[in-house]
């Protein structure tokens, strides 16, 4: 019964998406300032659709919580003996459930948009909702026609097939929904961009509406990537934190596009420049999340076990991709010429720096995109290749380094036009820090070039991040500016962690007999014993490693090699010893014939800073949203004429060339 309610809710939601699309499209037919009689249904349709889609997801959640084995999806992915939290996370730990989560979040954000967003002209809002409905409709069709999560088995299964043991992890329970929400935020940005393009309302008012969505999506993507990277680091037992595999790249590419979009939206909101470029990035950011979906789901590059991959699904997503992105680029090509040129600015200016940042981010995006798609291209000619760090690291660094340098200077520049001479002190300081940092580190030994550059840049960026606050009264600095400072500082922290990991990591691989000791960095690692142990659905061998730092009191680390039995699979559970200045990372391997055990231990100085930095970056984003929303709320209160009227005035103001007073960016 639960499943049938969910399925019915999904069908109804799809029907409402059609209503939202049609009704929204009618808004385009009304003259500006008037409301088409048929356009009033779009908002309520979006709200009700949101409720239904969330209901459908809740039903599936319930089916997983109660392990309803008559559902094919539950039988294939769950198990009655699993802990409840992993039963619940199993809901989105599979294709159908994750697509349902995706449309649930999509519909919910459409509902929020139509409930709370009253600043845009009704025509633009109608067009936006129409696009949003169109996008949602495609995903409803995908779910209902080729990946129905509520499909029943003819005969209920006796027992579920288990959840992938690697997914039985608390990080993974949170990580995918975070990323989805991020992607969906980009879909709202996409709808807004298309709506504004169709009504030619690409102006600062539109940018201010779009900004919180872009920022929100970007914060979630940042957190998602950070969490995913940490998960791969401790769960895979390989000691690495980023492998450049297609699945990781699929999450990085939307983040790069969203980062560029976030900065260009800032320019559009503050200075009314970069109009076409912002629209372009809005389309691009969503394209990248769709492309990631396609690459992961279709099996053209990687895929789950072949039985789970359906070429039909790949074709379906490619069809959607062609429809939305092809359509968007076509409309872009046809309409973008009609968008009036924005305000001009000098090359040396805050806008100029942001353009440069955008260009560099786009270049990195191109590098990652080409590297990810290259195996696809060569396979068309029957050559099998894999592309890894030897390509990605240097190629992306070539553009990341100038981008980071511009990032240090950009926030210090004035809008519209500036003179480099004004910033002599700051420029000299940054240059001195980069060169000094590199010189100081090379003094202590030979290190690879990229980590060396990274260390110098990290030092400079950490200081430069706070330079915009120089000479200002700290109490009066807007919250959004604090957000930028913290986010930029977070980049420096993260970069420092990456560079330290790259330059100073130590690794020890040895076969150790019980009682034997290995030395790594300041740590003496003693293998006390190896014991078999059993968990709820796995058995393992567990090593007891006594770690003494500089001869101090021992700390016991217990890396495991686990074997799960449903489905049969082996995982390596690393054991971590976290110090403020780094982590000791231990893995146990096989037993050699002579009875010794393979132990692999890394000392990774400051590796945790990579993820602390990611969290700081996300925190900066949250502050930026809070600051913007606070300014918005204040503005709304100040304006007695009401939110809708104000939006109209702003629209008039920008097209008439009368600049409205802006808060400092």
């Amino acid at each position, binding site marked *: 019964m639960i499943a049938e309610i969910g399925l019915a809710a999904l069908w109804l939601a799809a029907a409402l998406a059609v209503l939202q699309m049609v009704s929204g499209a009618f808004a385009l037919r009304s003259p500006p300032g008037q409301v088409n009689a048929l356009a009033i249904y779009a908002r309520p349709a979006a709200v009700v659709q949101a409720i239904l889609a969330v209901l459908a997801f809740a039903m599936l959640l319930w089916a997983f919580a109660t392990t309803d084995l008559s559902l094919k999806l539950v*039988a294939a992915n769950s198990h009655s003996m699993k802990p409840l939290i992993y039963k619940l996370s199993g809901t989105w730990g599979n294709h159908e459930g994750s697509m349902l989560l995706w449309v649930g979040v999509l519909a919910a954000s459409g509902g929020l948009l139509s409930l709370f967003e009253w600043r845009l002209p009704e025509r633009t809002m109608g067009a936006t909702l129409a696009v949003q409905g169109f996008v949602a409709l495609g995903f409803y069709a995908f779910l209902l026609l080729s990946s129905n999560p509520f499909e029943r088995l003819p005969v209920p299964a*006796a027992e579920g097939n*288990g959840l992938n043991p690697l997914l039985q992890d608390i990080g993974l329970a949170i990580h995918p929904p975070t990323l989805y929400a991020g992607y969906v935020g980009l879909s709202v940005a996409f709808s807004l961009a298309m709506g504004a393009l169709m009504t030619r309302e690409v102006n600062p008012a539109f940018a201010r509406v779009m900004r919180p969505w872009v920022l929100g999506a970007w914060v979630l993507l940042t957190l998602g990537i950070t969490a995913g990277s940490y998960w791969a680091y401790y769960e895979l037992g390989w000691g690495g934190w980023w492998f450049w595999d297609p699945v990781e790249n699929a999450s990085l590419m939307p983040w790069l596009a969203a980062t560029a979009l976030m900065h260009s939206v800032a320019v559009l909101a503050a200075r009314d420049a970069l109009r076409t470029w912002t629209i372009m990035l809005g389309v691009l950011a969503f394209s990248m999340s769709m492309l990631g979906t396609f690459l992961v789901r279709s099996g053209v590059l990687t895929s789950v076990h072949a039985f789970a991959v359906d070429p039909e699904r790949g074709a379906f997503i*490619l069809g959607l991709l062609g429809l939305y992105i092809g359509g968007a680029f076509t409309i872009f*090509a046809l309409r973008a*010429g009609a968008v009036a040129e924005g305000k001009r600015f000098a090359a040396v200016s805050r806008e100029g720096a942001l353009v440069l940042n955008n260009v560099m981010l786009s270049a990195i995006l191109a590098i990652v995109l080409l590297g990810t798609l290259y195996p696809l*291209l060569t396979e068309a000619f029957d050559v099998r290749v894999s592309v890894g760090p030897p390509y990605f690291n240097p190629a992306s660094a070539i553009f990341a380094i100038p981008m980071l340098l511009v990032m240090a200077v950009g926030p210090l520049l004035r809008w519209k036009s500036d003179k480099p001479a004004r910033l002599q002190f700051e420029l000299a300081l940054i240059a001195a820090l980069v060169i000094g940092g590199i010189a100081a580190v090379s003094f202590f030994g030979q290190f690879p070039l990229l980590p060396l550059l990274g260390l110098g840049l990290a030092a400079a960026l950490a200081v430069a991040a706070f330079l915009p606050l120089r000479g200002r009264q700290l109490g009066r600095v807007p919250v959004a500016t604090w957000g930028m400072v913290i986010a930029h500082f977070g980049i420096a922290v993260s970069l420092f962690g990456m560079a330290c990991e790259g330059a100073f990591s130590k690794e020890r691989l040895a076969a150790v007999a019980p009682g034997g000791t290995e030395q790594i960095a300041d740590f003496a690692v003693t293998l006390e014993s190896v014991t078999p142990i059993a968990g709820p659905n796995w058995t393992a061998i567990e090593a007891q490693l006594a770690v003494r730092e500089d001869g101090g009191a021992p700390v016991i680390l217990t890396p495991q090699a686990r074997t799960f039995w449903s489905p049969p699979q082996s995982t390596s559970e690393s054991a971590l010893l976290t110090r403020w200045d780094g982590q000791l990372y231990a893995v146990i391997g096989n037993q050699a014939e002579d009875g010794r055990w393979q132990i692999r231990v890394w000392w990774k100085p400051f590796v945790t800073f990579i993820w602390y930095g990611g969290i700081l970056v996300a925190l900066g984003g949250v502050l930026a949203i809070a600051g913007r929303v606070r300014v918005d709320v204040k503005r709304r209160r100040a304006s007695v004429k009401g939110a809708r009227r104000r939006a109209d005035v702003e629209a008039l103001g920008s097209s008439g060339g009368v600049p409205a007073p802006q808060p400092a960016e």
Partner: protein
Amino acid sequence: MRIRFWLWVPLALFAFFAGLAAYMLTQEKEQFVASTMIGQPLPDFALPPAFGALPGASKADFTGGKPRLLNIWASWCLPCIAEAPQLDALKAQGVEIVGIAIRDRPEDVANFLSRYGNPYSRIGSDTISEVQLAIGSSGVPETFVIDAKGLIRYQHIGDIRADDVPKLLAELEKAR
């Protein structure tokens, strides 16, 4: 005009990607690893029974006058449920099917057979995938046609769908 031209570039790039991806989707992917053992005799093996009611399997079971099917399966494998009716159909046609259960437990095997039917004459338990790897199978389910002399004649990879049954029967006939 110059600007208008640039506006079409993204669409062109995207069209190129979409074309390539569509082409790759239509390509048959060699996702299966064919066994190099085809045409060769079965390796020596003797596996204990997978559960109480049926005998185990060994190389000696594949001699004596008629071709047989060797089915590699497991109770934890969903496609194996999907192919159960087809195995029953083959059994109904008089085909003898020897099963090898991979990394399985007796109670799960018994459970599976009571639920989905038992087409097997004997089932060996291969708890470490030893025999599976030896005959060149890389997954479950897989089905091999073994002729009367114990030679591996044909390998079917993946679950047996209804339209695969005649093909298997024909291969069995050829192996006679």
